[in-house]
């Protein structure tokens, strides 16, 4: 993608989200505000990459949207129709733009609404991508592996609920801020995961760029939230290694990746974000996970042995948030730092009913059993891991490991 196009798209996205947040906060009708801005946003994505980004992008979008709004307002039949209220909000926005150089940014309120506890957790991430970033339902659907019609229906339902149940466009009260922010970050990370898992890479399903945009937005709008910086650092670190994780279609484990293909700029940005997070003095799981990624990278880049550091960080992560993922990661880190017996103890301690469909558990278990010389058990574990694998390169990698064991 050309730089001009990338800049134009990023600006259009930011302006779209800001205008949508403004109009929705004043009318509570997210769907009607989206409808009003849709054509203008489409026009911006068409014109800006070629003709350049206008000086006042929000004003440009608003001018393009206004005609449609006034049209709709004239046709509004029922009192419940939001068009007249939207026209008023648009006029208010114009006045604000004239009076001030900068247009107020209320996207954080919109993010909090999207991840409100009354909204189904499964739709939070798609809702953010659609409202804050203007992604179309079809693309979101392909990333989340559901049909466009089903995704559209669920998005419509969520927006209707925001309006009908009157979910407030206000930042959460101090007492709930921590948990509400965690919900926002979780939804952003879900979007990243939906992009990351996409076996085709960079296809329609790749949402990693969008997720990083949202995390950066959080660090701008809520700069005191350490976990926001932590999440940004974590995703940047992972994203930096993305070009190296496959070669000729085959999966390449981190220790064997060609570090020339890592994106050093992203790694530097990740480190900067992590430093900002630590300075806030409020450790959380995302920061620890980012520190783990940082240690992995440092190990490869400097040649220094960071395996003990990684194991220690995982221990801390398990203490902070004892998820299956953290426990499996801890076991893998122990196995890598010659603590194989302890790794098996950690794996044995995991509730088996929770890992019946968890591929990484079985892959790590196979690796640990093999290292300890329990070959028959290792073959069984490899089989379970292979059976649970989604993408072909990983499957091939595990099949090769298992075959090597039998020889």
């Amino acid at each position, binding site marked *: 993608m050309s730089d001009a196009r990338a800049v134009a798209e990023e600006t259009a996205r930011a302006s779209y989200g800001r205008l949508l947040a403004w109009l929705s906060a004043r009318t509570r009708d997210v769907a009607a505000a989206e409808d009003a801005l849709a054509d203008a946003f489409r026009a911006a994505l068409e014109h800006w990459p070629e003709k350049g980004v206008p000086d006042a992008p929000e004003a440009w979008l608003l001018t393009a949207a206004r005609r449609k709004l006034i049209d709709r307002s004239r046709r509004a039949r029922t009192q419940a129709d939001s068009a007249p209220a939207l026209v008023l909000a648009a006029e208010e926005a114009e006045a604000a733009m004239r009076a001030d150089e900068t247009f107020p940014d209320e996207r954080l309120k919109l993010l909090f609404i999207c991840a409100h506890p009354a909204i*189904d957790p499964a739709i939070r991430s798609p809702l953010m991508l659609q409202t804050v970033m203007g992604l179309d339902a079809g693309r979101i659907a392909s990333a989340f592996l559901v049909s466009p019609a089903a995704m559209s229906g669920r998005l419509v339902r969520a927006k209707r609920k925001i309006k*009908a*149940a009157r979910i407030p466009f206000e930042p959460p009260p101090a007492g709930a801020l921590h948990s509400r922010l965690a919900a926002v970050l979780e939804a952003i990370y879900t979007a990243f995961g939906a992009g990351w898992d996409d076996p085709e890479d960079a296809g329609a399903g790749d949402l990693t760029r969008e997720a990083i945009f949202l995390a950066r937005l959080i660090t701008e709008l809520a700069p005191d939230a350490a976990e926001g910086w932590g999440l940004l650092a974590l995703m940047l670190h992972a994203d930096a290694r993305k070009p190296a994780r496959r070669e000729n279609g085959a999966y390449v484990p981190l220790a064997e990746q060609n570090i020339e293909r890592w994106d050093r700029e992203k790694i530097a940005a990740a480190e900067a974000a992590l430093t900002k997070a630590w300075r806030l003095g409020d450790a959380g799981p995302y920061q620890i996970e980012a520190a783990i990624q940082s240690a992995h990278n440092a190990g490869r880049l400097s040649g220094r042995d960071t395996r003990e550091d990684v194991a220690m960080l995982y221990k801390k992560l398990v203490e902070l948030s004892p998820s299956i993922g953290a426990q499996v990661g801890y076991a893998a880190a122990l196995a890598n730092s010659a603590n194989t017996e302890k790794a098996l103890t950690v794996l044995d301690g995991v509730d088996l009913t929770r890992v019946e469909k968890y591929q990484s558990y079985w892959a790590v278990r196979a690796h640990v059993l093999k290292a300890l010389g329990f070959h028959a058990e290792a073959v069984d574990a490899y089989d379970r891991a292979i059976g649970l694998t989604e993408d072909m390169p990983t499957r091939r990698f595990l099949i090769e490991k298992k075959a090597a064991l039998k020889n």
Partner: protein
Amino acid sequence: MKVMLLANESPEDFSLREDKPEFDAYMGEWYAFSEEMSKAGLTQSSAALEQPSSATVVSVRDGKRKVEDGPFPDTKEQLGGFFIIDAPDLETASKWAAKCPAAKNGFVDVRPILDFEGSES
């Protein structure tokens, strides 16, 4: 006796509330039923509810609040509105319930209200 009539509507009935030509006919039936009950001196209060998808469910366990997207249970028919009526007996209340528009494609639950000593009427 005080009785609560709970109008449980079908998804098809709920969909008529959206911007559709059938909306006026749908509302007309409800207005007619509501007026008939008022004229008979039965209705004490009543309300229509927003779509079931606007429901939120709250519970508190071990001092921790849990908030979830509703409705519960996620059955086909869902509560769309209710009437609190003063009826001579359950039989009469049920006869009125059968006339409720929701009884055609959904159902109406007829539930007596608990009248314990010291309660206000």
